[in-house]
C-alpha cells in the first residue's frame, strides 16, 4: 500500500511486491515492449495512477580502510524509491538493509573517506503506475546513464502482508499479462514464512535486478535476452 493513502501504518507491515525483469521482445526496442505491456494492462482494466522512480548508486569501501587482514571491499548500494519519498535505503549484497531518512545522502558525502562512489554506477528505473483492483503494477524502463538497458515490472498486492501466503495469487496475476515471461518465486519469499513483508525486501529485489542488468551489459553482444 503506498503511503499516499490517508491511513498511515503504525507498524511496518507492507503489501507484497514482486519485482522482475521483462525481457525485451525480439526485434523490438525497449520502448515498444513497454508500450505493449501497458496496452495489455489497459485491456485488462487497469487505470493509470501517476509515475514512479527507483534509483540506485553503488559505493565500495575505500582502500584505506581495508586493514592488513586482506578483506575484500564490500559493495554498498544506496537506493531511493518514490513510493517512500522520505526514506533512503542502504544495503549490502547479502547483508542487512538500513532504512534511513533522506539526510543519509548527505551523510554519505561526509563518509567519503570510508565509502567511495563507483564511477558511472547510477542506475534507475522510471515508468508509470497502474492500479487494477487491489494490485498495483509498475512498468519501468531501466536506464544506466543515457542508454536504456531493460524493463522492470513490479507488482504489488495490497491486502496481504505475509509473503508466503499469496505467491500463487500473484503468480496467476503475473501470468495474465506477462504470459510466458513470468518469473519464479524470489529468494526473499523463500526463507521466511509467516514473517511480515517490509519495504526492505522490495529494495533487495530491485538491487538483484539492477545487478543482473549490469552484468548483462558486461557480456558483449550475445543477442540472447
Amino acid at each position, binding site marked *: 500500500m503506498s503511503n499516499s493513502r490517508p*491511513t498511515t501504518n*503504525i507498524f511496518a507491515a507492507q503489501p507484497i511486491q514482486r519485482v522482475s525483469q521483462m525481457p525485451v521482445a525480439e526485434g523490438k526496442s525497449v520502448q515498444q515492449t513497454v508500450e505493449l505491456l501497458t496496452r495489455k494492462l489497459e485491456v485488462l482494466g487497469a487505470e493509470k495512477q501517476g509515475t514512479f522512480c527507483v534509483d540506485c548508486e553503488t559505493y565500495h569501501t575505500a582502500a584505506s580502510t581495508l586493514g592488513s587482514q586482506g578483506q575484500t571491499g564490500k559493495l554498498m548500494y544506496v537506493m531511493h524509491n518514490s513510493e517512500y519519498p522520505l526514506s533512503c535505503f542502504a544495503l549490502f549484497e547479502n547483508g542487512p538493509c538500513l532504512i534511513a531518512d533522506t539526510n543519509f545522502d548527505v551523510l554519505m558525502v561526509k563518509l567519503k573517506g570510508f565509502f567511495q562512489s563507483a564511477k558511472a554506477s547510477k542506475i534507475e528505473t522510471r515508468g508509470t503506475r497502474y492500479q487494477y483492483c487491489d494490485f498495483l503494477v509498475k512498468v519501468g524502463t531501466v536506464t544506466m546513464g543515457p542508454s536504456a538497458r531493460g524493463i522492470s515490472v513490479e507488482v504489488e498486492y*495490497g491486502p496481504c502482508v*505475509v509473503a508466503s501466503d*499469496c505467491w500463487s495469487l500473484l503468480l496467476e496475476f503475473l501470468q495474465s499479462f506477462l504470459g510466458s515471461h513470468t518469473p519464479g518465486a524470489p529468494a526473499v519469499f523463500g526463507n521466511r514464512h509467516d514473517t511480515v513483508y517490509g519495504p526492505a525486501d522490495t529494495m533487495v529485489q530491485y538491487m538483484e535486478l539492477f545487478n543482473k542488468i549490469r552484468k548483462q551489459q558486461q557480456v558483449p553482444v550475445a543477442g540472447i535476452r
Partner: protein
Amino acid sequence: MADPLSVGVNLEAFSQAISAIQALRSSVSRVFDCLKDGMRNKETLEGREKAFIAHFQDNLHSVNRDLNELERLSNLVGKPSENHPLHNSGLLSLDPVQDKTPLYSQLLQAYKWSNKLQYHAGLASGLLNQQSLKRSANQMGVSAKRRPKAQPTTLVLPPQYVDDVISRIDRMFPEMSIQLSRPNGTSAMLLVTLGKVLKVIVVMRSLFIDRTIVKGYNENVYTEDGKLDIWSKSNYQVFQKVTDHATTALLHYQLPQMPDVVVRSFMTWLRSYMKLFQAPCQRCGRFLQDGLPPTWRDFRTLEAFHDTCRQ
C-alpha cells in the same frame, strides 16, 4: 416524553423549595421598598431614624430566615439521576423543537418495538420448536431439559455473561484473538484478529451480533483519539467484499434462544478466512476472478468460492 428523573428527587421538598424561593423574593423586594419609602413621618428626627432602622432590620431578618429555609429545602431535594436509559441518545430529549424533529420519541418507540419483536420471536421459536418438522424430534426434547432453564430475556444479559462467552470462544481458536471493549455504553465491541490476514470489528447488542467490518491486517482500526473506528470501510476491494459476506453470514446464523451458539458458529465461519489468499476456488480452480481471490465461504461446508462462482 419519558421522564428521566427517578426516585432520587423528593418531589414534596421540591414544591416547598419553590414556594420558599417565592417567599425569599418577596422579602427581598420588601427590603428595597422600605429603602425606597425612606423614613416615615414622626415627631422627632430620632424617632424617625429608630423606626426606620427597626423596620429595615426586620426586613433583613426575614430575608435571612427565608434564605436558610431555602437552603435546608434544597438539601432535601436531591440530585436527578444521571443514568439515562439510552445513554447519550437520552440527551436528544433536550431538543426543544419537538414537533419538527421528534427524534427522541421516535427513537424510544423504535427501541420498544424492537425489544417486543425480539421477545415475541423468542416465544414463537419456543412454540415452533415443540412442533419439530424433523423426525428425530426426541433430540430437541432431551436437550431442552438439559439446557439451563434460567436463561433470562436474551436481550438484557448481564455484561459479565457476555464477557464469559466471548473469552471462552477466544480460547477455542488459537489463531484467532478477540479483544472486547465497551467504549459506548453496554454494547460490546470486539476486535477479532485472524492470524496475519485480517481484522474484524464486531459490534454487538448483548449477545447478538449487530454489524461487522472487515479490514486488512495492516490497516488502522482506531480513530485519531484512539477509539475503535466502527464506521470507515477498508481501503481494499477484497476486504470490502468480505465485509459484505460477513454481513450476510450474521443474517444467516440466527437462533433466538441460543445466541452463544450463534456467535460460535459465526466465529467458526470467520476462521475459515485464515487461508483467504492461499485457497483456490473450489468451482473454477483459479485464484483470481476480476482481481479478487475466492472471498465466499459456504455456510455449511466452509469451502472457498469466488463470489461469482458460488452455487
